């Protein structure tokens, strides 16, 4: 199967899953006790204007499927409806807050990938005491939730030592990066531990294989043996965690942004959940799921490049 056909098929599968996910996100409001209109207004004074707005957005008098199609159609045009709490377009809110979250996730991702791969490499190659230290460190990291890391880092480095701001988003790019250092570390901690463990285990697995001994027997330098054979071959296993890493990063922004008062979509999700601002919750959920699936698609497309044994399209049989 050609690469393009493979990509097209994966894209179609992703679109199907996304439709399913959007169905769940839309349908969730029908699970609420009471009528959807009263739920959407959430006890706020049901002014005719507010009621009209909700009705205009969801067409609550129409059949469910038609409502869903209208809602989905509006989203495809970039219209996520109006926030009930903020009385403004959800797309405006998102546009304001998305940059901070994307920067935070990108910073954390850089930390996770560099530190995770490095620690896994060192643990697998060095062995002995170094490996034991890596194992203990990653075990603790994997047991530390992002919000615990956030509170402890904030207490030590922002409150006690005063090296970093205690919270906020900052103005301008440099200040934003500065404000997001601690949140990014808190966000990255758990996943760094996980990635290091996966990398370590995968590399140890490859280290036991015969082609590594053979490469050594052919006079390849030890560093090249580790890089070109051990690490290279472990990369396929490591890559499969890509989707999980990105989805966890996105979701945990809720915790970390709340702990550090970062004005991103994670904090917005927390705020709109507590204030029952359902259109905003819907929009953010959809964006997170969509981003996660886009990353999964990229990982899938990269996989054959990393492992030539995977013939395109045969993925289903093995996975």
């Amino acid at each position, binding site marked *: 199967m050609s690469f393009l056909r493979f990509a097209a098929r994966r894209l179609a599968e992703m679109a199907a899953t996304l439709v399913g996910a959007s169905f769940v996100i839309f349908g969730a409001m029908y699970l609420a006790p009471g009528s959807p209109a009263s739920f959407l207004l959430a006890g706020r004074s049901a002014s005719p204007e507010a009621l009209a707005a909700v009705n205009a957005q969801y067409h609550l008098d129409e059949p469910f499927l038609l409502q869903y199609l209208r809602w989905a159609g509006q989203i495809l045009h970039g219209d996520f409806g109006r926030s009930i709490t903020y009385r403004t377009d959800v797309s405006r809110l998102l546009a304001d807050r998305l940059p901070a979250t994307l920067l935070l996730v990108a910073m954390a991702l850089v930390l996770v990938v560099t530190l995770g791969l490095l620690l896994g490499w060192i643990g697998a190659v060095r062995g002995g005491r170094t490996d034991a230290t890596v194992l203990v460190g990653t075990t603790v990291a994997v047991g530390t939730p992002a919000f615990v890391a956030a509170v402890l880092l904030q207490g030590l480095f922002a409150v006690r030592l005063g090296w970093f701001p205690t919270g906020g988003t900052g103005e301008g790019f440099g200040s934003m990066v500065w404000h997001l250092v601690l949140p990014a570390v808190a966000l990255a901690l758990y996943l760094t531990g996980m990635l290091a463990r996966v990398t370590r285990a995968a590399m140890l697995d490859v280290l036991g294989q015969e082609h590594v001994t053979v490469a*050594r027997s*052919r006079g*390849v330098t030890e560093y090249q043996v580790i890089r070109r*054979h051990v690490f*290279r*071959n472990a990369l396929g296993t490591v890559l499969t965690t890509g989707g999980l890493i990105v989805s966890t990063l996105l979701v945990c922004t809720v915790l970390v942004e709340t702990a550090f008062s970062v004005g991103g979509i994670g904090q917005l999700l927390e705020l709109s959940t507590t204030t029952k601002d359902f259109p905003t919750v819907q929009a953010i959920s959809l964006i997170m799921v969509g981003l996660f699936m886009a990353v999964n698609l990229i990982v899938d497309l990269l996989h054959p490049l990393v492992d*030539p*044994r995977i013939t395109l399209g045969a993925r289903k049989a093995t996975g």
Partner: protein
Amino acid sequence: MTTLAIQAYRLHLPNTARPVLAGVDLTVEARETVALVGESGSGKSLTSRSALGLLPTGAGTEGTVRVNGDDVLTMTGDQLRALRTGTAAMIFQDPRAAINPLRRLGDFLTEGLNGRLAAGAATERAAEMLDAVGLPASVLGRYPGQLSGGMLQRVMIAGALMGDPALILADEPTTALDVSSQAEVVALLDDLQERFGTALLFVTHDLGLAAAISDRVYVMYAGRIVETGPAEALFNRPRHPYTAALLASTPRPDAPGGRLAAIEGRPPSLREALTGCPFAPRCPLATFLCTQQEPALLAVEAESARRAACHHSDRTGANDG
């Protein structure tokens, strides 16, 4: 100069009751083909790997393993690398396991040169060596999964030839292949050994194959050389009961009846210390002497090139068959 000279070589592993190799003496002259025969666990692979300095972790050694006069056991990392990229090369049993499945075969062929040639020249040499083993240069861009086992073993052989070695160690190079590829690979090795003038140590469990390809044969049992001699003489009249038993268990087209005799019992475990001849518990000729005193590897009769480590070498092989 002797290409490979192993003298009084002993190798210990942690947590074993006896040395894995207990005083091995073995030589391979330039341009000579020598076979090293034994069951799995006899130490034949360890012996051949030692020639490249490939020792298991925690191994302790005594004696010398000289390649072109230099002792491999005392080499530094850089010297070992020079040995492995140039003087000596190894062909492994299963090419599927021995070649990284994720890298192109061109990378496999050229990486052993370790930058001694410019990239272009290295690729050129790789194509030349592929031609020598009868494969097209297009194989350079292929992945191992795209080739058959026999073809892949040819790539392995081409890889061994890349550094223009004086010594090639072939560790059961045909065992993992199907029957038709086996014959091809043996013929190819024979041909190349002559063409490139390398010395060849052929490790196998198949005495018939050993006799067919080699000038001289060493038979190994429990970490010792138990018999050695010119291939034909050894094949015609073994002087050690173990060699005789190996022969009886080897299919031979000229053998009457065609029934194969399996050797009863198992090779001694590494966790038991040995007294006397290690083969005594399985040997039909064993006497009290055999259980008490280990026989030395001594010349047999007047044939100066033949030696056997058996108290009863004069009784062996006489009425065999």
